[in-house]
Each structure stands twice: as C-alpha cells, then as structure tokens.
C-alpha cells in the first residue's frame, strides 16, 4: 500500500488532533466547572494561649515542663549545647526583647514557658529536604523521625529555637522510659508535637492538662465561638516575632 502526499498530511493532522484532544477537553471542562468556594471556616487551626498573669502567680512551678518530659521521653541532658527541648522556660527578655520598657516589662513574669509555635507558615517545613517535617491540615507542625536525616536545616530556619538535635543517645538521660511513646535516636531533630498522640485520643496536650493554674488554653483558632478566640478578643495578646511572617499559633496573654 502506498500513501499519497495528501493522505499522509491528512493522517498527520488527525493524529495531532487526537493527541491534543484530551488536553483541549480538560481545558474546556475547567472553564465550565465553577471553582468551589474555599470553606475557610471549616479549616481547623490548632493553637494555644498562655495566660502570663495566671502563669506568673506560681513562680517556680514546672508542672507543664515535667508533664511533657514524661509523656514524650524528653531527656534531660546536662550539657546545654546538647539539650533537647520541647517546652521549656526562657527569660522574658529573650522571648519578647521589644517589650522591655521600664514599666511594660512588669506585666511579664521573669521566665516564660516557650514551645514550638506551630506556625501558619513554618519556615522549618519549607527548608526540610526530605519532608520529614510538614504541616498537618489542622495546623500541627509534625515531625517524622523515620525520615529525618539530621541535616539541621530546620533548626537554622526556625526563628524560635524550638528544634533540638540529638547530638548523643538520649536514652541514658531518661530517668524512666514511658513505654507509651517512643524515644528518639542519635542524629535526628525533634520538637514539640502539640501532643498529637493525645489529640488523637481526644485528650488535651499534656502541658495544658497539667497546669494547676489553668493558664494554658488549647483549641481551634478558627472557631470564633471557641474559648480561645474569646480570650484573644478580650485580652491583650502577643505572638513571638510576628514581623517575621511565620504566623505563630501560640499567643501570650498579658
């Protein structure tokens, strides 16, 4: 069988149309389908408010720190360069360096509890080369220790120092291993996980549940009727370094 030039051209044109028809059909489909309106109100953004008035009423109380340490097998390493921190205390000047005015600083206790801010735009997530850290739809910035290669980019990226590297085996520094939660191993980065394992069981985070002053309020920041939003509407609330644009989900009430 011999093809004439006319037939060859006709066949080629038909082949091109056939190959492109899928794309064309999809392009028309997209135009017709109206974009589904984003349900902003249905999205959950978990956050926390720390009432510094209530917290300051019990100086020296470390119940939230201890509860977290026991729940997650966080080691106590004496060498400060190797310390592993999930929730810990920082001096006021280091948490809010700009709120150091003569009288304004009296509104703060000398030491403030700090933890991972579970940012809206977490810089740690952006830099992670292995997707070992990512943001869950409910706002929790999660860590997958299986995937962490220990490059520590996230530690450099986090403006709040909320991430710690396991420079040494953490197990010798644990008084007692809690069998309900794994430990970490040398060479991975770890941080506060907003007690996602307790949230899955419908429990509050360990620090929130342990606070005798009820200074910590946990909830959905997008729930306008929720306790958290009511607190934020009625009290003066600070985020750490909001100018950086990370959008922390931890609020300090003064």
């Amino acid at each position, binding site marked *: 069988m011999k093809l004439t030039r006319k037939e060859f051209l006709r066949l080629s044109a038909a082949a091109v149309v056939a190959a492109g028809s899928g794309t064309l059909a999809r392009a028309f489909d997209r135009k017709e389908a109206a974009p589904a309106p984003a349900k902003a109100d249905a999205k959950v953004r978990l956050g926390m408010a720390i009432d510094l008035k209530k917290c300051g009423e019990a100086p020296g109380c470390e119940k939230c720190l201890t509860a977290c340490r026991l729940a997650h097998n966080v080691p106590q390493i004496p060498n400060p360069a190797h310390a592993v921190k999930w929730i810990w205390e920082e001096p006021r000047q280091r948490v809010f360096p700009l709120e150091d005015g003569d009288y304004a600083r009296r509104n703060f206790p000398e030491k403030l509890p700090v933890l991972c801010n579970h940012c809206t735009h977490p810089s740690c997530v952006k830099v992670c080369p292995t997707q070992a850290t990512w943001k869950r739809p409910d706002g929790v910035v999660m860590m997958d220790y299986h995937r962490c290669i220990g490059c520590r980019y996230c530690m450099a990226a986090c403006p709040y120092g909320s991430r710690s590297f396991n420079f040494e085996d953490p197990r010798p520094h644990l008084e007692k291993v809690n*069998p*309900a939660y794994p430990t970490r191993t040398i060479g991975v980065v770890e941080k506060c996980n907003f007690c996602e394992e307790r949230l899955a069981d419908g429990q509050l985070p360990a620090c929130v549940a342990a606070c005798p002053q009820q200074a910590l309020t946990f909830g959905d920041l997008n729930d306008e009727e929720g306790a958290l939003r009511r607190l934020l509407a009625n009290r003066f609330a600070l985020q750490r370094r909001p100018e950086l644009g990370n959008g922390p989900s931890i609020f300090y009430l003064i």
Partner: protein
Amino acid sequence: MRDKVLIYAGLLLVLILLTYPVWQGLAGRTVSAGPQLPQLAKGKHCVAPVTVMKKAHMQLLMAWRQGKVRHQQDHYTAYDGTRYRVSLTGTCLAQCHGNKEDFCERCHAYAGVAPLDCWGCHTSPAKAMAKTPGAAQEAQ
C-alpha cells in the same frame, strides 16, 4: 602412577572442604528447624493470617508507620473486622508477641536477615516481665 598418593590426598581434601558445612552442623548439633515461636493465647490471633504475616509483615509495618505518622490513621481494621490501635510496642508486642528478643530477633537471626533498626527509638517491653507474668504478680 607415581602421583597416586598426591591425587587421592587432593581429592580427599576437596571432598572434606565441600562437605565441611555438613560436618560443622553435625558437630554443633544444629537443626534446620526454625525457632518455635510461643503460641498465642486462646482466642487471640494476629492482625492478618499467619501466612500473610510471614511473607508481608514488613509491608504491613511500613503501611502502619506511614498511615499513623503521616496520615493520622490511628486504627487498623483487620481482615476479620477487629479494630486495632496502630502501635508497634503497644499492640504488636505488649498485646501478643511479648518482646523483640523472643519474637522479632529469633526469626531474623535464624533467617540471617538484618531488620531495620526499629529499636533505636521504639521500646520493647522488658524481657523478664513478658516471659514470666507470674513472677511479676508475685513481686507486687
């Protein structure tokens, strides 16, 4: 035929070398039977049939890990409809298989398969406690 002795000696040497593993096995009184794993308590069975678990426990563990850590799938529905909590220490070991020394490591050692290093982070119930539950009760 002057090299008769040398040739037979050489053949014998080769024969001994070839059959060496047999003699070694006989001398060490090893048996080729795999480790006898402890029977599960009555009414208890695994999250999948034993044949499946023997072949594909690694895939199941990996699916559990991915599901739990990355997709918030905290429960697993088994083939018979039973719901299990996804947990290596809490479900696999604590509920049925005891501890890693008696369960995971015996088979892996027998098969000569190096497992992934789970135990750098995950904890295994203590060996003595799991082995003699009676002793633990007496101590209380």
